[in-house]
């Protein structure tokens, strides 16, 4: 996605949210700052309790920050109650009004805004078409399936054409196949409507699939903001590296730091090239991360040496767990071919070669 000179839809400026007081107080958010551009699909990613839902609620207006500002296109929206913010939410539990039909639910926001009946009717029809629910317009929301409810919740939030759409783990209740379908749907909707989506999830695979940019959060702080590639390939911190995908951690002696690169000497004795996060000055010893798919297993010698401990078959690929001579554990990921096996067996002595540009020095 090329960098567009878009405005910032949402700016979170040094926002903190503290619950309780005195000894027992908990900082759900700790001086968090992030800018979300308009027309982007932005994801807040992190484990439960990291503060992502709290941040979403602050943007929606269901709670007030203890410190800091939240700007919507440059305007401070913190003093505005939720019904005055041009921001709509898709709730995790969908929160569909049980005593109204699907059509009434979708039209609710427009009704509250005082739009004329004809306009509401037209827009509701438009929305039903958008989420492919035309047939169920007259049904009570308690009579439709979970996946259908999810789409109604989406349509309801999109109908009033908000400036920003907030989605609070909307896919978590769906089964795997449905979830995958909805991920594609959501991406398509965001493109078509051009509305800024702020998506909250704990599923890193989901985040990588759908987002233009991701903010990885933990314990009330934002650890890294970047595109899915940046986050995956160049994790800034140990938590990010660990949380996203699978990673191998190797201790190494660092030398020759410069220009975003460094030389890392591994325990096995080999030295490889590694990238360094911007602005980070690594010490003499640091942790280097290598993704399992960026390493190759060979019967000959490689950058590392070890014994095959375990082989796990995954359908699309195979994970081969190796115990290195240095004692560390290392996983290699190999794509499966239809005809042959992975070529290795438990107990085999193997070498591992690490690709160029595959290692990153971690900011510990």
């Amino acid at each position, binding site marked *: 996605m090329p960098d567009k000179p878009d405005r910032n839809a949402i700016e979170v400026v040094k926002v903190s949210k503290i619950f309780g007081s005195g000894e027992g107080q908990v900082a759900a958010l700790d001086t968090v700052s992030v800018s979300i551009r308009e027309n982007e699909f932005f994801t807040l990613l992190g484990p439960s309790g990291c503060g992502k839902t709290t941040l979403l609620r602050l943007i929606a207006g269901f709670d007030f920050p203890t410190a800091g500002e939240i700007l919507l296109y440059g305007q401070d929206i913190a003093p505005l109650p*939720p*019904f005055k913010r041009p921001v709509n*939410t898709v709730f995790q*539990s969908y929160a569909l009004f049980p005593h109204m039909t699907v059509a009434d639910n979708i039209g*609710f926001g427009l009704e*509250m805004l005082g739009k004329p009946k004809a306009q509401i009717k037209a827009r509701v029809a438009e929305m039903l078409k958008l989420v492919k629910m035309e047939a169920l317009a007259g049904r009570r929301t308690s009579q439709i399936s979970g996946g259908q409810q999810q789409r109604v919740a989406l349509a309801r939030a999109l109908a*009033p054409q908000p400036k920003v759409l907030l989605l609070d783990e909307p896919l978590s209740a769906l089964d795997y196949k449905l979830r995958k379908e909805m991920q594609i749907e959501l991406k398509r909707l965001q493109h078509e409507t051009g509305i800024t989506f702020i998506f909250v999830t704990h599923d890193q695979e989901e985040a990588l699939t759908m987002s233009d940019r991701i903010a990885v959060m933990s314990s009330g702080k934002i650890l890294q903001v970047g595109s899915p590639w940046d986050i995956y390939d160049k994790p800034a911190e140990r938590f990010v590296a660990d949380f996203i995908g699978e990673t191998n951690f190797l201790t190494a002696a660092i030398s020759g730091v410069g220009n975003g690169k460094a030389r890392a000497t591994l325990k096995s004795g080999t030295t490889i090239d590694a990238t360094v996060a911007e602005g980070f000055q690594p010490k003499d010893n640091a942790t280097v991360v290598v993704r399992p798919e960026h390493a190759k297993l060979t019967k000959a010698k490689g950058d590392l040496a070890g014994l095959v401990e375990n082989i796990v078959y995954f359908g699309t690929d195979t994970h081969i767990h190796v115990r290195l001579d240095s004692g560390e554990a290392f996983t290699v990921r190999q794509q499966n071919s239809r005809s042959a096996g992975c070529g290795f067996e438990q107990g085999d002595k193997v070498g591992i070669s690490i690709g160029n540009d595959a290692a990153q020095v971690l900011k510990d």
Partner: protein
Amino acid sequence: MADNFSIKHQPGFTAIAATCFVVLYLPIIVLVVYAFNAASSTSEWGGFSLKWFQSAWQNTQVIDATLRSFQIGSIAAVLATIFATMAALATTRTAPYPGLTFKYAAINQPLMVPEIVTGVALLIFFSRIKIFTGYSGIGYLVAAHTAFCIPFAYLPIRARLENMDLTLERAAADLYATPWKTFRRITLPLLWPGVLAGLMLAFVISLDDVVITEFVKSGGQDTLPTYMLGQIRRGITPEINAISTAFLLLSVAIVTLFFFVSRKQD
């Protein structure tokens, strides 16, 4: 395992329970039966007759008292339900805040005081006001009934409110509904069964009241229960059986309705 050992069986409990249920209903059944007794004795059966119902129907005092009961009951029930709904909204689904326990205790206070004490208190208080204002109409009874009906209306409303998903109202606010619109379009419709249950409860409680009404009323302001009390004190007539039976039917009807409404909540 040994033959059909039921972990739930306790010796004698079922017998006692059965006896209790029988004993609970027996006097009432006897009363109803004798309301249709042609003879005026309560131990001999003289044949089936509706004459006691007829005489009660023609008794102007009975009609007068009944109308007054309904009048006070409906006004008090409606007022109590409105106030109780507001109070329930104020005291539920919130983190504890200063004054919450006080409010909760204050709302339930009428339940904690024996009726005789409240009756005495209101007798004194209202007599003072009577001297002051000269007013001695039905207002005192309505006020007294509203007061002790509030905690009864409050209970089912609060219960229903607590079980309501707060997210629904958040969703409404998110979709541009002002607090008033949220209440009218989302909260109230979903709360309605509880409000209805509270209304019915309050009405029954008001109809049933004897003690407080007895102390607060001025002469000639009988409600049905106070009229009946006066009659019973004077002597037993089968007419009272007939009135009681009619009253009973009404109570049963309302309770049955109440059960239906409460069940529909799910």
